[in-house]
């Protein structure tokens, strides 16, 4: 790699520098408390996955190119040149990180590893070494946004079947799944496919909500890829749709990162203030139940059931009580995992890992802790309000022969409604 290329890649660090990242670069003492916090380090024992080491790779580049100490006494501070070996390490450790921020919880200085991962991804993309599959998925989402008219008919076609199912479920031939409905109160953003549309439609139907379905999926592969421009473009499809339909709020389906991108990142990234609220469907369902808008009249589930706090829903977004409230309404034998809530272990599937086939074995291996946690509860059903978690839990269920059932909160609620 020539010097110019090295400087360009290292330069990303300078361009993306902000005060928070600079604190984190300066204050880590490499005490490695984070080693016991990361499921990937605990299950592999590979220092590459130790959170402080992930950050240290970036810190070495920073010292080499941007500090006096790196220039005057590089041996003391261990600055590193940007070379193929460093980029290899960076790729491996960065795209493997699920962004669960359990390390931040345990860090005595609250260092947030995801800030390092974000800048690492930007460096890799500049080096032409971003994750190819995530780039393809992000690209596909952007294309869909640019040429939505081409896809609209396909979506309407797809919804016809789902609508029929809905009508059967609720016993009302007029029940429908509205799209493109101007003046709706809420725009519901589901995932590609219908498994997150049908249960929501059942719930909205009973709650008599004035809703409309987004033509776009909530998932944001631009975020996982680490390309802010693409992440904004993908989120903006939904924002623009909400704006033109003049809705009062956007309700995101059970998808951890999608909610976080919309609620905590979009405004800062796009430098615009949103004229509507962002909510998660779990919050809304809990509200419907409390207000008596939906009646959960089916008998409570008797089988033991446990709840997996998705990192992006719990630790990183603060929804601990709403899911538990709903679960207790529909299940008779709810058992907590240990640890849970802000200390819960990551399932191993977040951060776009489930979409990266080269990490399949790795995420199965690093899901060991979650498997043990679930086994200890003796639960036969695992509920989790995050698509990434559920996909990972499905894989774990299969590979470890757990014989459990994995479900969403929406499905639990929709099944508990008798029409």
């Amino acid at each position: 790699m020539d010097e110019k290329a090295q400087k360009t890649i290292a330069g990303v660090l300078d361009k993306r520098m902000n005060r928070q990242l600079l604190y984190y670069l300066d204050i880590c003492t490499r005490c490695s408390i984070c080693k016991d916090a990361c499921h990937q380090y605990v299950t592999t024992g590979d220092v590459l996955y130790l959170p402080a080491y992930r950050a240290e790779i970036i810190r070495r580049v920073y010292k080499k190119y941007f500090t006096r100490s790196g220039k005057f006494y590089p041996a003391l501070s261990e600055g590193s040149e940007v070379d193929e070996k460093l980029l290899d390490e960076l790729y491996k450790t960065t795209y493997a990180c699920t962004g669960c921020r359990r390390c931040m919880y345990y860090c005595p200085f609250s260092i947030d590893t995801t800030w390092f991962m974000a800048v690492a991804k930007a460096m890799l993309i500049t080096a032409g070494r971003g994750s190819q599959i995530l780039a393809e998925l992000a690209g596909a989402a952007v294309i869909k946004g640019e040429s939505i008219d081409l896809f609209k008919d396909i979506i309407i076609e797809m919804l016809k079947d789902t609508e029929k199912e809905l009508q059967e479920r609720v016993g009302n031939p007029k029940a429908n799944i509205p799209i493109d409905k101007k003046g709706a109160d809420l725009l519901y953003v589901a995932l590609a496919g219908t498994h997150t549309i049908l249960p929501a439609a059942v719930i909205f139907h009973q709650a008599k909500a004035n809703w409309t379905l987004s033509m776009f999926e909530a998932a944001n592969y631009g975020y996982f890829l680490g390309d802010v421009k693409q992440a904004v473009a993908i989120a903006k499809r939904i924002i623009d749709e909400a704006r033109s339909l003049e809705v009062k709020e956007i309700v995101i389906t059970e998808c951890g990162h999608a909610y976080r991108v919309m609620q905590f990142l979009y405004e800062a990234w796009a430098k615009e203030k949103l004229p509507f609220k962002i909510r998660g469907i779990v919050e809304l369902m809990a509200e419907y139940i409390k207000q008596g808008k939906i009646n959960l009249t089916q008998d409570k589930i008797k089988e033991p059931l446990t709840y997996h706090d998705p990192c992006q829903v719990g630790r990183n977004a603060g929804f601990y009580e709403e899911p538990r409230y709903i679960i207790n309404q529909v299940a008779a034998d709810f058992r907590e995992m240990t640890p849970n809530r802000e200390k819960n272990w990551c399932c191993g599937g977040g951060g776009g890992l489930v979409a990266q086939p080269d990490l399949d074995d790795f995420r199965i291996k690093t899901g060991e802790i979650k498997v043990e946690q679930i086994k200890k509860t003796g639960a036969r059903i695992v509920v989790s309000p995050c698509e990434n978690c559920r996909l990972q839990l499905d894989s774990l269920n299969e590979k470890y022969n757990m014989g459990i059932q994995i479900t969403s909160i929406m499905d639990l609620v929709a099944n508990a409604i008798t029409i």
Partner: protein
Amino acid sequence: MAEDLKVDLELDLKGLLCPLPMVRVSQNITKVPVGGIIRAVATDLGSLADIPSWARTTGNEVVKTERVDKEIIFYVKRLK
């Protein structure tokens, strides 16, 4: 008609949820020669829009889409 297309690789994507149908097609596209065709059978309705947009991003082509009951059959041609 399907018989007109010479299929180089069959993919069974039934039961897979988004984004996995797209991921599997992407993973396997290099296993067929340029100009070759993958016949992928999916059940996730989301793939109806996803796989064509993936093809456009990557410069490949969905030459034909069929629906048989719950199954969606894509014929994806590798262009590069």
